[in-house]
C-alpha cells in the first residue's frame, strides 16, 4: 500500500518534534503507519525512513525486531490468546484450541473472510483474569470457550466497533502540548495541532476529543479497566 497520507505526515512531524533526535520517533511513526494501512508496507517504510532520515533497510531492520509490527496484511481483528504461565495454569491452551476450531485457523493464520488473525501470545499483564486475550490489544479477561464464542459473534456483528478500534490504532488521544511541541516564543502550536487533528478526521484522531477513557468501558466484559477496580476491591483491608 501506500505512503503516509498528508495528515499522517503532519502527525509524523509532530512526533519527530518531541524528541532530541529524529530517529527516536521511528517506532511511534511506524505505529501511525500501521494504523493507516493495518500493516507496514514497503512504500510506507520507505516514506517513514525519509522522514526520520534512515534508509528503508534500517527501518525494516528495526521494525522486524518488534512483535507488534506486521509486514503482511492481517485480519480486521487480531485475536491474541495468552498462553503464558498464569493463563496456562487456568486453561489457556484449552481456550486457544477452542479458538483455533471456532475460527478454523492455527496461530499465525487469518480467516478466509479476512476478519480474524489468531495469535498465541506471551503474557499480556492481565494475569489476574486468566485466561485472557486481547482483540486489537483491547483486553478481555476470564474468557472461557463459551465466552469466546459470544465475543466472536459480537465482533462479527459489529457490536464492538466502539470498544475495539481497527488493528494498528495505538493511541486515540493525541498529544496536545509540550515545550517541544510549541514554536519558540509561545503558544499557538497547540491550536494548530488540534486543528490538524480535527482535519485528519481519521479514526485515531477523531476520537482525540472524546473524554479520556470514556469511549472504552468494557467493564461488563472485565477488560483491564474493570480489572483495576476488581483488583482494587481486593485491596480493601479486612476488618
Amino acid at each position, binding site marked *: 500500500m501506500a505512503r503516509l497520507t498528508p495528515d499522517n505526515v503532519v502527525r509524523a512531524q509532530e512526533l519527530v518534534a*518531541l524528541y*532530541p533526535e*529524529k*530517529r*527516536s520517533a*521511528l*517506532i*511511534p511513526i511506524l505505529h501511525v503507519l500501521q494504523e493507516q494501512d493495518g500493516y507496514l508496507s514497503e512504500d510506507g517504510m520507505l516514506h517513514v525512513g525519509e522522514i526520520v532520515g534512515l534508509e528503508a533497510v534500517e527501518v525494516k531492520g528495526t521494525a522486524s*525486531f*518488534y*512483535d*507488534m*509490527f506486521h509486514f503482511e496484511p492481517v485480519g480486521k481483528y487480531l485475536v491474541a490468546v495468552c498462553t*503464558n*504461565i*498464569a493463563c*496456562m*495454569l487456568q*486453561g489457556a*491452551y*484449552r481456550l*486457544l*484450541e477452542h479458538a483455533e476450531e471456532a475460527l478454523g485457523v492455527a496461530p499465525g493464520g487469518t480467516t478466509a473472510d479476512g476478519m480474524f488473525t489468531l495469535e498465541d501470545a*506471551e*503474557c*499480556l*499483564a*492481565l*494475569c*489476574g*483474569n486468566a485466561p485472557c486475550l486481547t482483540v486489537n*490489544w*483491547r483486553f478481555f479477561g476470564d474468557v472461557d470457550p463459551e465466552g469466546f464464542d459470544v465475543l466472536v459473534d459480537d465482533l462479527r456483528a459489529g457490536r464492538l466497533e466502539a470498544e475495539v478500534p481497527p488493528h494498528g490504532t*495505538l*493511541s*486515540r*488521544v*493525541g*498529544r*496536545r*502540548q*509540550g*515545550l*517541544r511541541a510549541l514554536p519558540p516564543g509561545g503558544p499557538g502550536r497547540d491550536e494548530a495541532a488540534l486543528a490538524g487533528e480535527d482535519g485528519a478526521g481519521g479514526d485515531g484522531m477523531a476520537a482525540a476529543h472524546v473524554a*479520556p*477513557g470514556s469511549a*472504552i468501558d468494557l467493564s461488563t466484559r472485565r*477488560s*483491564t*479497566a474493570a480489572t*483495576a*477496580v476488581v*483488583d*482494587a*476491591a*481486593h*485491596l*480493601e*483491608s*479486612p476488618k
Partner: protein
Amino acid sequence: MTYTQAPRIVTPRLLNERSWTIGSYLSSGGYEGLRRALTMTPQAIHDQVNTANILGRGGAGFEAGRKWGMLRQSQPVYLTINGDESEPATFKDHALIEGDPHQLIEGAVICAYVIGAAQVFIFVRGEFPLAIERLQAALNEAYDYGAVGANIFASSFSVDVVVHPGAGAYICGEETALLESLEGKRGYPRIKPPFFPAVMGLYGAPTIVNNVETVSNLPWVIQNGGDSFAALGEGRSKGTKLLALAGHVKRPGNYELEWAKATFRDLIFDPALGGGIRDDNELKAIIPGGVSSPWIGPEHLDVSLSNEAIAGIGSMAGSGSVIPMDHTACMVRAAWRIVRFFHRESCGQCTPCREGGGWLEKILERIEMGQGREADLDLLMDICDNISPGVTWPPAQTTICVLGPSMPPSIAAGMSRFRDEYLAHIREGRCPFPPDRLPRRLARV
C-alpha cells in the same frame, strides 16, 4: 494482622470513580506532593528519598536515592520511566498506569526536578493502548493544569514529559535495551560496563531509569516524609509493595501490603487476599518473584515477603509476582512454558541464550510429550550450565544481560524438587497430569 492496617501508598485511588482523570485525582490531594516538592531544594528531596530507602520496584531492588546519586555530572540529563511490564504473571504497573496515571506523572516530575532532567520519557509497553491513551490524556490535563511544561506551578522549573510506546519485545524492559529502543533501534541490551545508564544512557547522556511503581511512591513520600515511609516495612524492604498474585489461587489480583510484614501463607491463604488454593487443592510449588526466580515449596510458606527473606531462601522478590501452583500442575510443562517464553524473547545477541534456550525448550517439550530419555536430565543441566556457569543463585553470567540466565532456575528447581516427576514422564512415556489442561498438540508450537 498488622500487615493489613498499613496505609496504601500507590493504590489508594484505584477504586475511585474515573480514577484516571484529573478531577478525580485533585479531589484526593493530587499534585500536592509536587507543589510541596517545588518549595524544597532538590537536595532536600533527595535526602528524604534516601531516608525512605525506596528500593527499585522493577526487579533488581536497587535503592532509588542511591541510583540518583550516581548520576554523572554533565548536561543534559534524562529521566526514563520503565512501563514495559512484560515479566510473565506481573500486572501491577499495568494497573497503576491505567488506574492512576496522574500519580505516575506527579512522581515522574518530582524525580525530574531532583535530578535536573531536561526531559522525561515514559516508555509504556505497546500492547497497552488503553494505558497509553489514559496516560496521554492525563498528560494533556496536567499540561493544562500547569503541573507539567513550562514554569510548573509558577516555579522556575520546566520539564517536558513524553509518552513513548513500545512495539512488542519483552527485552525492552531491560533498561539498556529500553534506551536503545527509545533511540529508535532494535532492542539489544548494551554491553556492560558502564553498568548504569546514570553514567551513560540515552543518546550517551546520563539517564535515570526507574520503574513505574518506584516513582509512583514519590508523591506520598514528599507529603508524608521519608521517615514515615521508612517506618513501614523492615530492613531494606521499606514502605509497601504491590504484589501481583496469579496462578492457582481463589482470588488472584494486585495486593498492596506493608512490605516484609506478611508471609507467603498470608498472601495466599488470607480470605481477604488470595483466599486459598483453588478447589482447596494442595499447594505444590510457588514461583515467588516472577518467572526468572527459583521456585520454592510449601515448606517456605512462613517466609516473610521481604527482599531479604526471599533472598535468604535462595530466590528473589523480583517483580513482585507470586504464582502458587497446585498438585495438578505439571512441573515439566510449567518449566517448558517459562523456557519457551525466554527463548521466544531472546534478542539473539549471545549464543548461550539464543541457542541454549532453543535446545532447552525442545528437550522439555519432548519429555512432556513422553518422548524423553533419562540422559535428557543431565543434558538439560549441562545446557543450563553453559548459559549460567554453576547454575547458582544469583546466577553467574556468560551473556550480555540476565534474560539468558533466567532460564535455568525453573529447570534446576524441577530437577532438585521434582526429579521423580521428570522421570515418570520418561518411564511412562506420557505426561501423568490431567489432560484437560494439556495442550493436545504441544508438538506444533
